[in-house]
């Protein structure tokens, strides 16, 4: 008879193997996602083409215990937060997830370019058989967002979006280099929880971990402008974001350039709005023209440019006073 310890040891060995394999593969996937320049930098750093090895000696408990696998877990927790945003209605690995390529909780912040397409309401498709049809009564089967009230459709309960925060916090702790986590956390803290102070702290923590991130500058500027109503600081931060974007853009690959153009458009249109509110119409027009260069819908922006030019013309046209 095989001793029970053999089964136990076999299970442990299998678990260790799976965990090790996942931890080995995840950095390679990360490397595939990196742009060419950074890949080159990493390869130069190691002297040969090896997967990225992030430092484990930062003193962080997650780094020490989990090593590189923490990124894998961080991504899982980020997805978990989006699942909570949908109150559990979320596609699994066997479902059609075309409409969930970009997390909806990130998409709804307005700071992230969406890659979603397809039907987000019906990823389950038509029922396949009686077991499938019967089973759909036992799990969430309706597309809802927490900020719109969730399953109860109660807009008064939109503060329930707080439920995504623990997973986002965990994700940020595990992978401090993921900019999106800070943006999403700060946005919902500010918009729905009215916790501007914490949102501010999250964005500054993000900037400490990812210095020079124009995405974070954009969100921080929004916080200053919309929550603190501090025009000067918002302008400074957004302009710093634009400078950073101009430096970074040429080094990105085409896919990343597409995403970054969306952020640049947001930065410039927000700067234009800020300048318009401040009465600096020529500057506002300049920012809108900068936005046109990166926008996928330049015609819409041209309408705004025309409006501002008309407004400017009105200001400088001397008033024709009646003779009598």
């Amino acid at each position: 008879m095989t001793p029970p310890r053999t089964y136990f040891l076999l299970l442990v060995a299998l678990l260790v193997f799976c965990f090790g394999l996942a931890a080995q593969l995840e950095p390679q996937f990360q490397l595939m996602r990196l742009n060419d320049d950074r890949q080159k930098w990493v390869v130069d750093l190691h002297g040969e083409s090896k997967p990225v090895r992030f430092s484990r000696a930062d003193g962080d408990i997650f780094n020490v215990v989990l090593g590189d696998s923490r990124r894998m877990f961080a991504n899982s927790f980020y997805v978990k937060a989006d699942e909570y945003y949908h109150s559990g209605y979320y596609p699994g690995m066997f479902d059609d997830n075309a409409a969930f390529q970009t997390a909806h909780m990130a998409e709804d912040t307005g700071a992230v370019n969406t890659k979603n397409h397809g039907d987000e309401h019906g990823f389950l498709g038509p029922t396949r058989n009686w077991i499938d049809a019967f089973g759909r009564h036992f799990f969430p089967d309706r597309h809802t967002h927490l900020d719109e009230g969730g399953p109860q459709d109660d807009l008064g309960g939109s503060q329930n979006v707080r439920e995504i925060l623990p997973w986002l916090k965990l994700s940020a702790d595990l992978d401090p280099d993921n900019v999106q986590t800070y943006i999403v956390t700060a946005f919902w803290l500010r918009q729905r929880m009215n916790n501007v102070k914490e949102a501010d702290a999250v964005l500054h923590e993000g900037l400490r971990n990812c210095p020079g991130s124009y995405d974070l500058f954009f969100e921080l500027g929004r916080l200053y402008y919309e929550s603190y109503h501090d025009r000067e600081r918002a302008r400074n931060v957004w302009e710093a974001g634009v400078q950073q974007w101009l430096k970074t853009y040429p080094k990105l690959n085409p896919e990343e350039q597409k995403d970054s153009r969306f952020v640049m458009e947001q930065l410039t249109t927000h700067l234009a709005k800020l300048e318009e509110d401040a009465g600096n119409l020529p500057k506002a027009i300049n920012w809108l023209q900068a936005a046109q260069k990166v926008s996928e819908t330049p015609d819409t922006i041209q309408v705004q440019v025309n409006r501002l030019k008309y407004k400017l013309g009105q200001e400088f046209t001397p008033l024709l006073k009646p003779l009598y």
Partner: protein
Amino acid sequence: MKNILAVAGVVIKELYRRKDFYVLFIVTILICVVMASINIYDDAHIVRYLKEISLLLIWLSSLVIAVTTPARQIPVERENRTLLPLLAKPLTRVQLIFGKFLGCWLVCGLALLCFYVFFGALSASREHHWPLLNYFQAAMLHWFMLGIIVAFTLLGSLVFAAPSSNSTICFVIIGGILFVGRHLDQVAMTLQAPVRTAVYCLYFAIPHLELFDVRDLVIHNWPTIPWAYFCLALLYAAFYMVVFLIAACLVFRRKAIN
């Protein structure tokens, strides 16, 4: 029936003599209390992560109880040589199987009662409301699912040599059903002809334990399951319990006691 209840009573007494349940219960409480003490952006109303962790621990603990308790019932009786004197009394083999099953199932029920009362108290402490009907449905579905597992493990204990191998095989099968059972038909569609038919048949043959996993509905405060479907799910579970118990009786009838 009296004999069955007597055997079941002995199994229940065994529950509170053994330390398994206490250890699992205390570990669950400790982990939940530690998780509840974490400060997340100064917001004391965040509760769903806590409900998720708590329910996950309850599920794991209940699975451990539902597999390990029936797995050792008959092998231990045989090992201690108490099976023969037990059957020498006016107790048939069928009654013994049904008694053991009922005892193990009630043990799971008692454990679940404690776990769900704790879970309700934990979530009420943050949410300030108590959706009793949702909890009732979740607990009942959970209990009936454990009934299938108990019957299946009891059958396994008659087929496999040792409780450890039986437990391991049961855990693997239960885990497999819970994780991929729902999608086996989709997997079948990607396979070639003979294997496809086999996997498709398997999909319809296995007890779909994942149907009884309504944790997401409880965690995210979805409305209650329509009662007609709830009752049908209980009937579905009862059907599989009977099937496994009949199979266990048939196997045990031909089994040498020594």
